[in-house]
């Protein structure tokens, strides 16, 4: 299942804010079917790394390759989805309407539908409730449903476990396993406080 050129690759990636390095040179290559865990203490630069990988922040040095080609926001054609501290949900729309917008923008993975993915993340019965009325964990689940719906091959998840209950954590692990089995790649940050289920994933450690 491993393709010749890795799906996502970082080469000697550094980022500095006001000439203070946030994280040192990071190297990794993520092939289809792999899930890697970015670990680090508070303030070690996990969120920053994620934003560099999405192309929002410009790395000082080093480069990011997607499918072997240098990465640019214009050309990556929806290959990446990002789930950050801010969930990207419109609070006045329902979960269903939010997903419909994502579907319009990115397209839909073959064989799924909005109702199906909402049921998968445990929001059956809440589909038409405005997101504003959902609790912190329910909002997180609505955001996770996007991952299931869209055809992107690379997932970048910043602290997907925060605010979720035990069942929610198991849900994230299941989503990651299925994604890897489909040949996708995922990069997940965590403080290592929650145990990552499944076979031992690759780890990338950042130090504060």
């Amino acid at each position, binding site marked *: 299942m491993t393709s010749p050129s890795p799906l996502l690759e970082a080469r000697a990636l550094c980022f500095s804010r006001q000439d203070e390095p946030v994280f040192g040179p990071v190297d990794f290559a993520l092939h289809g079917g792999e899930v890697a865990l970015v670990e680090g203490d508070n303030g070690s630069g996990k969120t920053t790394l994620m934003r560099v990988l999405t192309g*929002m922040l410009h790395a000082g040095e080093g480069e990011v390759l997607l499918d072997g080609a240098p990465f640019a*926001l214009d050309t990556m054609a*929806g290959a990446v989805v990002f789930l950050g501290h*801010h969930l990207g949900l419109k609070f006045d729309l329902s979960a269903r309407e939010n997903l419909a*917008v994502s579907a*319009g923008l*990115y397209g839909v993975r073959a064989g799924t539908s909005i109702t199906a993915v909402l049921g998968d993340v445990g929001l059956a019965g809440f589909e038409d409730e405005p997101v504003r009325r959902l609790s912190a964990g329910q909002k997180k689940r609505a955001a996770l449903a996007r991952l299931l719906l869209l055809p992107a091959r690379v997932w970048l998840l910043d602290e997907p476990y925060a605010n979720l209950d035990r069942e929610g954590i198991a849900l994230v692990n299941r989503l990651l396993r299925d994604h890897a089995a489909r040949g996708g790649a995922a990069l997940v940050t965590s403080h290592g406080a929650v145990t990552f289920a499944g076979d031992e994933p690759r780890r990338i450690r950042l130090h504060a």
Partner: protein
Amino acid sequence: MTPGSTPAACAALLRRDLTLAWRRRGDIALPVLYAVIVVTLFPFALGPEPQLLQRIAGGVVFVTVLLAMLLSLDGLFRPDIDDGSMEQLMLAPQPLALLVGMKILAHWLTAALPLVVVAPVLASMLHLPPPAIVVLVVALAVATPLLSLLGAVLVALAAGAKRSGMLLALMLLPLCVPVVIFAAGAVAAAQDGLPWIAPIAWLGAGLALAVVLAPLACAAALRIAMDT
């Protein structure tokens, strides 16, 4: 339209913004009410003489519409940036300029169009004569999209700043001066029975240019704004 194609993406985004506006339909009415109230403040502040009010009617309506649009402009990209939607727009497999153009269109439909519709009422409250009112509406119909487009570029530039409302006003108002001069000039000309086509034509030319360039500039400015 297959989901994920460019027309589908534009339609989805436009539908989203219009739905959001509809959910907060009170907010669509608010710029209009704001304009109505500001216009009514003038007679209080200046005294109720009809000749005086008639003389300043065109100018006051333009300045008021400008201020009302200004207030709503701040909400053009800020909510999307704050809640993480902007990142998703940027990562989507669609030209960002086109998506931004859709957002501007939605903004014009929801924030400026109601103002254009209500402007005749405001103008006649200040005793502007009917022929001049027709010109006023024409001038607004050309000037407001231009203001939306110019405003969007500046909002996008200011989006990276910590707090943008006022900054925006500052940057936008000088750019609006020519628009105000041309538009109010057309109304004044009509009021004096002079030809008023030329200033409107200039505004139209500016609009044509802005429709093409502003979304591109916006997209570039937003990329810069997200880079913090």
